[in-house]
């Protein structure tokens, strides 16, 4: 960044601005905002996966002391038809999945609301349902352009080339349904004030206050000026808080029925399993055709997934195979089937995460087939240009990550033979996998800077979901203004602040930071280095931020050591190392935490995560944190993340690229490849539970 002073803030490991508030527990999350006359909402959810609500008996609930209102499809207000049926809450007596909102109780205490909700009698008529994704499901279809732009892509003649290739690998990999499970369950407080035109305040746990404001004003037919969404602190999201969901609409419906009361609605952990999104299961068939030297001739990646009947969402798992490796012939396809399941949505690195598990597992299998080092196989297939667009790379550092990562991990001298090293009762192996993530800048964010009493206040309606955004935007502003970072104050997390895009797709710092740099330049141009009291300037993320003539991606390499118990099949991962190329690192402290966090979630995906669907009852049966396992402290040992010292000014004016998701991309493949190296057992279905390794194997 040309405006960076030598002693700049960018690049320094500054502690988080809100750190002291967070360690004390004082940083207010949505539920903790002070409101007058609070009332509490508890929903009633459907208990069949498909059918109709025949009748709702509310009398018993209504008679409980403290109950203020019982909402059903018969008395809830009529909402605007937005075309997005996720938001058509309590509009029709139709049940599209188990765990759908069919009624709600609002009462003066949370205990009473919960108890009264249990007294609402919902008579449901069940219809036959289908909740299981099977390979070649009879109702598979090609998704629409909105859910999956370019669902299919083809270059050359992949089928003919697979016929001709010297070596052909044809494998199918499966990933299960998974749930985001941020530690703070989704929560809203809705307050409707009746005076004048009416005004809605929503304290919300969201990755994008402006996104929520825009969506809800549409659903309720309000002017966006009548709606304010406040979310200064968010307890994680990993995608599920990237859009409002049905619970937000329900909270507002209740608030409009009880003007002047703050309606507090905290989803229980169990309710989050059906109401705020999940990652679709995937069934991915990978076909690789190569010559004996390991040069890929053809890559075919076909992914099958589910979506809901309410709304279409496509997990774009095969997209990675359009970019990763050189091959003259390639095809990737996505097919969906609409099941009677809750609505799938973003979960950290949607598409890339399950897709790279499959494709990086296949590359490992091909290397094994060719008796070749897996890093060497990737070296032989390094594309000079982006195979998809034909554009030159802005900064493709995959091989550097693999080679330097191999050095630092201690890869060299590895005995390639599987099941060759044993320590006591444990088989020991190592694995590698590549990572990539597209660089995304969302246009339209606006930053405003104002000077008063020696302090520069930066205002932008961005969200900090644990990324460090509040801290990092201050660093960017300080350097762009050429002032000490201590003189910059940052205000985010409120839709009354200037427009900002969602914290998703690893795009936050890139999109908002570009607006901040533009605003700082405008400020300096207008007011110089000695601004007067009240001086201000604003600017919007420029449209031409990313170099259009280049392919801009982040890359990385994961290394893992797995120990698999010979008697029990238990997998332990004592060592993980990731080396990443993410452009310039603005704050090494927060970026390291993000990269390690992504790797830990990748380890969790590899070893534990699995939403188990009961096909008869149509629900996820392990819908809590005792049964839906996520990595705990004892699962994680020796995780290290580092990065290459780089700067990519084709990506952003800061030289940075996104870092929020790449840590989870490829991680599960590295672990699975290590487990294969340890045992000789190739597991092609996640998670890597012990039973999968308890099979007869040769030496």
């Amino acid at each position: 960044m040309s405006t960076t002073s030598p002693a700049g803030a960018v690049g320094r490991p500054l502690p988080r601005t809100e750190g002291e508030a967070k360690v004390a527990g004082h940083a207010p999350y949505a539920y903790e905002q002070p409101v007058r006359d609070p009332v509490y909402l508890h929903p009633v959810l459907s208990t069949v996966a498909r059918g109709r609500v025949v009748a709702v008996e509310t009398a018993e609930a209504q008679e409980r002391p403290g109950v203020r209102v019982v909402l059903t499809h018969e008395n809830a207000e009529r909402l605007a038809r937005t075309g997005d049926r996720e938001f058509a809450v309590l509009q029709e007596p139709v049940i599209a999945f188990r765990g759908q909102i069919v009624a709600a109780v609002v009462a003066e205490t949370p205990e009473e609301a919960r108890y009264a909700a249990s007294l609402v009698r919902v008579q449901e008529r069940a219809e036959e349902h289908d909740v299981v994704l099977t390979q070649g499901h009879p109702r598979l279809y090609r998704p629409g352009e909105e859910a999956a732009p370019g669902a299919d892509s083809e270059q050359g003649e992949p089928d003919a080339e697979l016929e001709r290739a010297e070596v052909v690998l044809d494998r199918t990999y499966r990933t299960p349904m998974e749930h985001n499970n941020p530690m703070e369950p989704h929560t809203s407080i809705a307050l409707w004030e009746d005076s004048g035109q009416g005004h809605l305040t929503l304290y919300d746990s969201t990755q994008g206050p402006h996104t929520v404001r825009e969506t809800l004003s549409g659903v309720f037919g309000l002017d966006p000026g009548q709606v304010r969404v406040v979310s200064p602190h968010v307890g994680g999201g990993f995608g599920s808080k990237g859009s409002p969901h049905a619970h937000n609409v329900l909270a507002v419906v209740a608030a409009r029925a009880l003007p002047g009361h703050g309606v507090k609605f905290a989803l229980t952990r169990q309710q989050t399993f059906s109401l705020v999104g999940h990652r679709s299961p995937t069934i991915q068939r990978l076909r690789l055709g190569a010559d004996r030297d390991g040069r890929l001739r053809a890559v075919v990646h076909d992914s099958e997934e589910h979506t809901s009947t309410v709304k279409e969402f496509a997990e774009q798992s095969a997209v990675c195979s359009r970019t990763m490796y050189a091959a003259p012939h390639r095809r990737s396809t996505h097919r969906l089937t609409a099941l009677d399941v809750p609505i799938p949505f973003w979960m950290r690195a949607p598409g890339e995460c399950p897709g790279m598990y499959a494709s990086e597992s296949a590359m490992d299998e091909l290397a094994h087939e060719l008796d070749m080092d897996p890093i060497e196989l990737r070296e032989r297939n390094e594309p000079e240009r982006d195979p998809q667009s034909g554009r030159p790379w802005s900064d493709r550092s995959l091989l550097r990550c693999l080679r330097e990562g191999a050095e630092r991990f201690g890869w060299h001298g590895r005995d390639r033979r599987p099941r060759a090293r044993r320590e006591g009762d444990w088989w020991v192996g190592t694995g590698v996998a590549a990572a990539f993530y597209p660089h995304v800048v969302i246009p339209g964010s606006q930053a405003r800077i104002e000077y008063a009493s020696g302090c520069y206040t930066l205002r932008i309606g961005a969200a900090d979901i644990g990324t460090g955004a509040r801290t990092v935007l201050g660093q960017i502003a300080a350097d762009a203004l050429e002032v000490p970072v201590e003189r910059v104050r940052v205000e985010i997390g409120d839709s009354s602040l200037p427009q900002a895009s969602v914290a998703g797709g690893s795009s936050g710092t890139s999109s908002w930071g570009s607006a901040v740099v533009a605003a700082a330049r405008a400020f300096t141009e207008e007011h110089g280095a000695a601004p007067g009291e009240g001086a201000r300037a604003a600017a919007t993320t420029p449209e031409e931020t990313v170099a259009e003539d280049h392919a801009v991606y982040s890359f990385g390499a994961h290394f893992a050591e797995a120990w698999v118990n010979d008697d029990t099949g238990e997998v332990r991962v004592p060592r993980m190392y990731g080396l990443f190329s993410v452009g310039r690192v603005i704050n090494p402290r927060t970026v390291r935490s993000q990269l390690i966090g992504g790797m830990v979630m990748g380890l969790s995906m590899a070893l534990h995560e699995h939403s188990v669907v009961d096909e008869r009852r149509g629900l996820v049966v392990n819908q809590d944190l005792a049964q839906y396992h996520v990595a705990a402290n004892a699962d994680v040992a020796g995780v290290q993340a580092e990065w290459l010292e780089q700067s990519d000014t084709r990506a952003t004016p800061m030289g940075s690229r996104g870092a929020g998701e790449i840590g989870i991309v490829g991680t599960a493949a590295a672990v699975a490849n290590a487990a294969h190296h340890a045992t000789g057992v190739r597991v092609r279905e996640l998670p890597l539970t012990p039973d999968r390794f308890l099979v007869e194997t040769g030496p």
Partner: protein
Amino acid sequence: MEATITLHVDGYRRELTVDTRTTLLDALRDRLGEYSPKKGCDHGQCGACTVLADGRRILSCLALAVAQDGAHVTTAAGLAQGGGGPHRVTRAFLEHDAYQCGYCTPGQICSAVGALSELEAGMPSHATDHPDAPVRTTDAEIRERMSGNLCRCGAYPAIVAAVREAAQ
């Protein structure tokens, strides 16, 4: 049914009347406005609600408020504002960036303080070599003892580093 109870929260005596179904967590949050302990699961599965009750770490979502009548409850807020400045565990969490979204953090810190007293008292864990052997503060012991506190942001390596430092 309601009952009137007394809680000493972070050094302050608080008297309140609660529905007897109320958990300690909900009493702290919804009745007293003490939002430092968090609700992540309400079933004792995540650890976000951990507080110290009479010096021992407990899951406040699994404790009924009426059963804690008279208890001295310390939250992460109390640990952060002690007389001699923030608790050494609180300081170590800041220094090691042992949190991201911050939602599990108050529970992690209370749990770490409780775990360190258990280590000091020589209480063995699953990671201890032998129940009769002296307990040492190893990384394996810290990981094991902190495994009741989930962190979805994946800050575990930094949490272990923070607790290790605070133990010294």
